């Protein structure tokens, strides 16, 4: 069964190699890319079923047993995030094939995208911290290339910031790893959960906070988020969509994984995380309200929504972490689909400045409908998927007695709705500053409908999240109980 764990990492890497070889034919590259991502999607769906029915799945690389060898582990959390990521990556690749100007101009797009896929899967599955570091590097290396693929001056400028910030985070990660290894003599997460409990509590807490800082930079929490709204909007639309949907959430996943499995009991920095969560929500949404570019505005919302996930983690209760898992699944899908809508608008109107857009609702009513569904879902309007996630988090906060952060999260939801209505009234209602050119002059019908279908598929997936909220919440609750207990995970890895 370990093949289930190998496919999401190895298939994209092999696909990337094939794709470089097929560089002359864009059609063949597309075929390879789509089929590899389809394979990963099917594999991860099977993995979710398998992990949910028969428990944590472990693969020991080269048959070296766990604390010595390298283990790959899938539990309920990693399986469901992997499934959502695979779905998003597939939809965004379909969008990229449709979009004129990114994928068709660069031989390197498909191979790099597949390596990004491998990096994302790799970051979700390792059983030890050092491989988590390597996975982050694989993912980031691909993201550096994708971010600066056009080679324009603004991409180079923001790419430089992004690369240097990521490198500082990676150096801190390595430093934390060295300290953890020096203190315990292992980097295997299951092994660590037992050995860190034996350390002096001050040392354990210090290591926990150091890891929060490291992954906080990757997840863009307050006050470490400043690089994100500056660098994401300069990339091509599909690239921004996949970054916005996935990369920060992988940081959140890493916080969730390390703070639950590795650190136990009162070593967990719950209070710190709740304060950080409140500030992240508020600062992100206030930044968003002040923006006039659609993609910059949405980038600030990424930061704001990260706050909700951190809030659920900071509660350290089954209900809180279940809420976070539900919210991560919803966010990956909705954030990516909002950025795809922004990409559709960019293609159609050749700008994403809100003061130049207008009247799109009458011309492109399907785009308007897709935006409305995704935006209302982001703000948390019932019965859409954002409401389900936020309800779970608010209930958990109320149960945990964290009233301040609950109040902040509700107020931030209102501001989110306000800034979404700002996009709506500026881009979809009113009159454009100059009349819109006919669609045929910008993009062919075939490409347009492919992009539209990819976006619609993601929006539909977010509707599925809200329709299947009951089973999904029960699944997240089981996953959260596993994480907080940890004995299943540790037992399966070290058995």
């Amino acid at each position, binding site marked *: 069964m370990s093949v289930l764990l190998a496919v999401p990492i190895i298939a994209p890497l092999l696909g990337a190699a094939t794709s470089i070889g097929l560089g002359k034919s864009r059609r063949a590259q597309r075929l390879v890319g789509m089929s590899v991502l389809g394979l990963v999607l099917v594999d991860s769906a099977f993995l979710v079923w398998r992990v949910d029915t028969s428990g944590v799945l472990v693969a020991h690389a080269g048959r070296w047993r766990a604390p010595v060898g390298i283990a790959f582990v899938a539990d309920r959390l990693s399986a469901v995030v992997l499934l959502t990521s695979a779905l998003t990556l597939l939809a965004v690749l379909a969008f990229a094939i449709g979009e004129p100007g990114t994928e068709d101009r660069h031989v390197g797009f498909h191979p790099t995208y597949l390596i990004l896929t491998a990096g994302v899967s790799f970051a979700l599955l390792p059983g030890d911290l050092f491989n988590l570091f390597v996975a982050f590097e694989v993912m980031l290396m691909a993201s*550096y290339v994708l971010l*600066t693929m056009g080679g324009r001056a603004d991409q180079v*400028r923001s*790419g430089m910031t992004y690369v240097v910030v990521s*490198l500082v985070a990676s150096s801190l990660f390595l430093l934390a790893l060295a300290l953890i290894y020096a203190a315990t003599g292992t980097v295997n997460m299951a092994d660590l959960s037992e050995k860190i409990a034996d350390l002096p509590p001050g040392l354990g807490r210090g290591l926990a906070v150091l890891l929060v800082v490291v992954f906080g930079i990757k997840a863009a929490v307050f006050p470490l988020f400043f690089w994100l709204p*500056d660098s994401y909007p300069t990339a091509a639309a599909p690239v921004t969509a996949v970054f916005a949907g996935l990369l920060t959430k992988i940081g959140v996943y890493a916080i969730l994984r390390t703070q639950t499995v590795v650190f136990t009991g009162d070593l967990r920095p719950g209070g710190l995380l709740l304060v950080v969560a409140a500030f992240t929500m508020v600062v992100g949404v206030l930044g968003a309200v002040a923006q006039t570019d659609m993609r910059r505005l949405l980038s600030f919302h990424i930061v704001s929504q990260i706050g909700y996930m951190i809030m659920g983690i900071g509660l350290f209760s089954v209900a809180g972490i279940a809420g976070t898992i539900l919210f991560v699944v919803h966010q990956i899908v909705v954030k990516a689909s909002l950025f795809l809508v922004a990409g559709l608008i960019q293609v159609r109107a050749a700008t994403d400045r809100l003061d130049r857009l207008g009247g799109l609702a009458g011309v492109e009513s399907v785009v308007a409908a897709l935006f409305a569904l995704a935006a209302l879902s982001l703000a948390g309007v019932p019965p859409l998927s954002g409401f389900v996630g936020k309800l779970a988090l608010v209930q958990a906060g109320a149960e945990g007695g964290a009233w301040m952060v609950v109040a902040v999260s509700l107020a931030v939801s209102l501001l989110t709705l306000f800034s979404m209505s700002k996009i709506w009234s500026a881009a979809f209602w009113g009159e454009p500053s100059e009349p819109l050119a006919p669609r045929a002059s910008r993009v062919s019908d075939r490409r347009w409908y492919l992009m539209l279908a990819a976006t619609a598929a993601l929006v539909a997936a977010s509707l599925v999240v809200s329709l299947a909220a009951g089973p999904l919440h029960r699944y997240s609750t089981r996953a959260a109980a596993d994480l907080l207990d940890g004995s299943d995970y540790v037992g399966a890895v070290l058995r």
Partner: protein
Amino acid sequence: MTLVLAFSAAVLCGCGTWLMLDRHLSRVVVGVGLLGHGVNVVLMMAGVGGSRPAFVGGETTDFSDPLPQAMALTAIVITFGVIAFLLALAYRSWSVTGDDQVEDDIEDRRVASAPPVELDAQSADDLGGSLEGEP
């Protein structure tokens, strides 16, 4: 020996951080390299020497710990790759802008290019300062 290593790690990390705060891209790249080396030295120090070797068994006690060395080796390779990419990016920046400086970010430029705020008499009073040419 440990003190020497700790000191050199501190110096490398300190110099790396200082260089990274510079506005010249070439210095930033060198800074990233130094920081990476500093962290690798810390990683080397993390090993617990003199314990039983992991794979071969037996009672030998003069083995150094191989795991941090393997990790440092991996980290060196990764840093090497990323620095190569950074150099390419710095070169591209130089060929696009003709300059080695980090450019201002968009927000800074927008604030700098915004028209100056006109204060009316009331808000100038609120600010507590008297504008020149006041009647």
